[in-house]
């Protein structure tokens, strides 16, 4: 069926997928890659307006060929700005290089085109424009030379571990490269690209040692590895334990192998995380759950040893099998407990992911509401509090306090002054939520002495 028309990269068409209610839906999708395995073709599709984590390889019968839209030649999607050769050559690409002799004019053309298409499909295109402009401004008429010449300046910033600019988002990193990861009792389906050694990306399953997170190509190798690996917990100092929950602190400089393995695993589930630079300036806080087999990793967050921007979390992740069970909030709570010990306010590094935003908002809301509801009338006067006070108590950065108050619609202007109003449904909702929140950090169980990294001379 699909064979008579050539579905190439960049084509858009509705693709069948099941939604959460297990109903069929046909969201518009873009073809990112085509591969031929013996007997049939497979298409890697990205559902427009859906998160990349839902991208997948589909068989031709799931494509709605009747509504196929061919890519507009000049209006390349940002993903095609990747490395020369990083994507399989396609006819469209050749057209572009033919144009590139008249580089400047083709550039203008591109801009016009994006504008023209603005009404249509092109939120993604608009968003990508800054990237294109910057590239074009590098000067030079030959596209290829631009690509190679801006290698160094385009390296991501050295601080933090998240990238916000997507100039590196080429076709390679846009596609998941690992099919399945086996970690302890779990089989995980990665959400995003992760730079595991390339020769391992073709495996049906990548095996990870549950405790040291070493990657292995087969079960046999894992078996062998386990005879040599005697770790039963993350290789760091346990700084918190209550019940079965423990937190281990790992220094990204002192324990590189583990930190890197952890980052590789985390990258599978974090889109904007960059592994461009080494792990030296980070500390990793790994949350584990204990059972008779050992301390099993549940999630982690990383944190810059010294943050210039008040970040108290760089990357944060609850592993998929543990998601939606309150562990994420526990991780967040722990990160603020650390900030409290440090006597600082902090905020997570941006950009947040969708799940990150929801989790943080939820945590902030509950934390702030908890404070507001607990305030008792003082000498018969109405209780009051400043934003700074909230921030100090919770270690949540002021901006986040404000944004949460706003999001909850608590701030009102009444009779010439700002007030906080707690509506019924907010109060009820909060009480319901707090009843469900069993997992809490107990500050008494935290044994943590912050180090002054600036005085140590090294990270």
């Amino acid at each position, binding site marked *: 069926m699909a064979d008579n028309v050539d579905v190439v990269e960049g084509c858009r068409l509705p693709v069948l997928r099941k939604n959460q209610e297990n109903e069929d839906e046909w969201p518009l999708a873009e073809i990112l890659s085509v591969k031929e395995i013996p007997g049939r073709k497979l298409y890697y599709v990205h559902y427009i*307006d859906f*998160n990349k984590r*839902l991208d997948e390889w589909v068989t031709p019968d799931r494509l709605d060929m009747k509504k196929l839209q061919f890519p507009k030649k000049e209006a390349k999607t940002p993903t095609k700005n990747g490395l020369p050769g*990083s994507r399989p050559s396609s006819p469209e690409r050749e057209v572009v290089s033919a144009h590139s002799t008249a580089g400047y004019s083709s550039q203008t053309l591109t801009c016009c085109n994006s504008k023209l298409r603005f009404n249509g499909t092109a*939120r*993604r295109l608009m*968003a990508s424009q800054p990237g294109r402009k910057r590239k074009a401004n590098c000067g030079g008429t030959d596209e290829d030379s631009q690509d190679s010449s801006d*290698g*160094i300046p385009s390296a991501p910033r*050295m601080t933090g571990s998240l990238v916000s600019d997507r100039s590196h988002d080429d076709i*390679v990193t846009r596609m998941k490269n690992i099919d399945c990861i086996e970690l*302890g009792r*779990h*089989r*995980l389906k990665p*959400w995003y690209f992760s*730079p595991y050694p*390339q*020769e*391992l990306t073709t495996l049906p399953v990548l095996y990870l040692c*549950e405790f040291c997170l070493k990657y*292995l190509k*087969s*079960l046999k*190798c894992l078996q*062998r*590895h386990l*005879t*040599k690996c005697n770790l039963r917990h993350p*290789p*760091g*100092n346990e700084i918190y334990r209550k019940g079965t929950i423990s937190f281990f602190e790992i220094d990204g400089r*002192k324990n590189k192998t583990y930190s*890197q393995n952890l980052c590789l695993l985390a990258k599978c589930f974090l889109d*904007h995380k960059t592994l*461009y630079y*080494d792990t030296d300036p980070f500390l990793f806080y790994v949350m584990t759950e204990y059972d008779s*087999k*050992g301390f099993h990793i549940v999630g982690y967050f990383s944190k810059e040893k010294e943050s210039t921007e008040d970040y108290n979390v760089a990357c944060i992740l609850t592993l998929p099998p543990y998601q939606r069970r309150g562990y994420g909030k526990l991780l967040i709570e722990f990160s603020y407990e650390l900030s409290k010990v440090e006597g600082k306010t902090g905020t997570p590094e*941006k*950009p947040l*992911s969708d799940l990150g*935003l929801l989790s943080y908002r939820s945590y902030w809301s509950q934390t702030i509401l908890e404070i507001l509801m607990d305030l008792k009338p003082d000498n018969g006067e109405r*209780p*009051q*509090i400043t*934003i700074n006070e909230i921030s100090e108590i919770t270690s949540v950065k002021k901006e986040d306090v404000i*944004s949460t108050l*706003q999001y909850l619609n608590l*701030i*009102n*202007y*009444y009779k010439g*002054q*700002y007030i906080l109003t*707690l509506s*019924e449904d907010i109060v*009820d909702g909060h009480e*319901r939520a707090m009843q469900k929140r069993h997992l809490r950090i107990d500050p008494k169980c935290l044994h943590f002495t912050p180090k002054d990294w600036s005085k140590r001379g*090294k990270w």
Partner: protein
Amino acid sequence: MSKLSFRARALDAAKPLPIYRSRDLPDLKDCVSINRAVPQMPTGMEKEEELEHHLQRAISAQQVFREKKENMVIPVPEAESNITYYDRLYKGELKVPKQLIHIQPLGLDNEQPDYDMDSEDETLLNRLNRKMEIKPLQFETMVDRLEKASANQLVSLPEAKLLLNEDDYLLKSVYDYWVRKRKNCRGPSLIPQIKQEKRDGSTNNDAYVAFRRRTEKMQTRKNRKNDEASYEKMLKLRREFSRTVTILEMIKRREKSKRELLHLTLEVVEKRYLLGDFTGEVLNEVTVPLAEKPVYTAPVTLTNGNRHKAELKTKMHKTGLMHQVSIKDEFPFDCVRPKKKYSKRDKLYTQRRPGRPPSQYTVNKADIKQYDFHSSGEEDYTPPLSPPSEPDEENDPDGLFAFRRKAGCQYLSVSVCKLAGMDALRHRHSLTALSLPSRLVGLGRRRMGRGGRVILDRASSGLDVVLKQLDPDAFASPVSRTRDINRVSSATAASSFAEILNNIQSLRWHCFRPRPAQHQVNEGSRMGKPSLDGRVTSSLLLNTKNNGSGGLSFTAGADNQQLVGKTSEIFFTSAQCAKCTLTSYGLHSLLQCSSTGTSRPPHSATLSHSGAGISGRVSSSGIGGPLLPTHSSSSLQSLPNHRNHVSAVSPAHHHHSAQPSAPSPSALKLATVATTLDHVPKVTPASTISNLARENHEPERLLNGISETTMAMEVT
């Protein structure tokens, strides 16, 4: 509308906000729109992602229901937690410790191999296990080492042999398997590794390269300035440590082989003793093929592996020392059991054995070569006692021991030091005689060994050859004791062998003899046998040769005792065979031929004075090592020829000359030797000059040479 006409003041974070419940403020709805005055905070998400369908749905659901609705959550790819074999995979249980866990991060990298065996390897292992025992861990360690040693290209088999201390068959099978597997492997290594950045920046955009070093000046605070430098230093240190490890491993290997060889040698000796092979004939038969084995095949380490280049120097040093130690070890063996006449003895002195058939030496020599080669892989570079076998002998005759001036060192003038050197030697050591094979063993030093054994540390000197000709009993009788140096120097002029004997006898040497002499002076053994006489002279002649070069070395300055040793060995092989068939005169005339060919008027004159003249020469270079300066001026231009010749003899020549070890060497063979000599005299003026220039360094070298044979001493 009018309500909006005023602008609300900015929200002040420091200003208290009163908290109301909505029910307390029925008129709140009126002022809601004011909210706009508070600047909207960014969510912190990427704009495009913020608009994603599922997120928006989840947000609005939360706004509406104030809690999560099951079907409104953001969908994610599934995860399963049903690995059934988990308990078999992760064996054992862990009891939770009472205390919080603390770990030393530095203790983490244990010595476990990073390579993990796969099922393919297991098949091989099962196959190998039929023939020998190999544990998975052992296999993994082997592959691990091979992998880690192969940075840019695969390690070669010889390198692998050095790397892995394993049985040859096992090594070969694993190596071959590894090479095959490596070829089929898609990754750059069998141990999957994260792609590393390349320094040229070509990998800046490679998505698979991760964890790049932060190379830019890390926003340097003052106390971080040195980070880069100290990092480099640590890198260097690490490199050097790993080199040390390699070296030590090789030493370990070598010493193991040495021990093995020692056992084998011992076994051979015992077997020979049982066989009654006192003439060495059996051994000779067996070992002739061995003698032909090329001695100078370069050791494997050195042919490949740039990695080892830098350590070469150290290695040479070390092996040099080791070798000396090993030689020293043999001395007790020699002296403790003096009755074992034909046991393998110190190479330097073997030729002195009376009554040993000429072939005997050659056989021994083969042994020695074998020993040298096998006992220490790199020994060819530092053959203090073995024939010079490295191909670049010509360019760098002294190899490791080549003299280098040290900055800031003062070098004393020639003659004084030379005398002092010889003197010192004479004072430190005494002439030593053995009682049972009644003979003199040259200079030596006594010390007490275990169980009251007397151990003799011998020192080699230019005198040895002469001294050992002497009857030990000659020293028993006290002789005139006032003989000063000048008098000795006059011995140069002495023209008869007897005279030299006298000279030596009359010197005030300390002499050690183990037991009061039984006075078994056997005149016949010394003089009566004409054959002995012939041998003596012929050996002397050889020594002439030897000392000719030795003497030269004194003047030319490029030599040390070690070289003397070398040259003597070279010539022994050729000349020993001459012993039987040719008289000293015949050989001498041959030599004379060569010397005339080399156009050295002064000395050929001396030499042509027939046997007596030769002995005179012997005395001059033998005893009178230190005395040479007296006549060096006359011989300077000519002597280097000889010396050069000596070093110019290629290994092939050795062999050629070594082969006539057959019981009846022919004159023809000797002629070849002579021709070799004839070929020599290509001395350029430059080399002569350089030899002259180096003359001054001789004293030190002489001393070094001596000390080399007595104790393990660092050669500067």
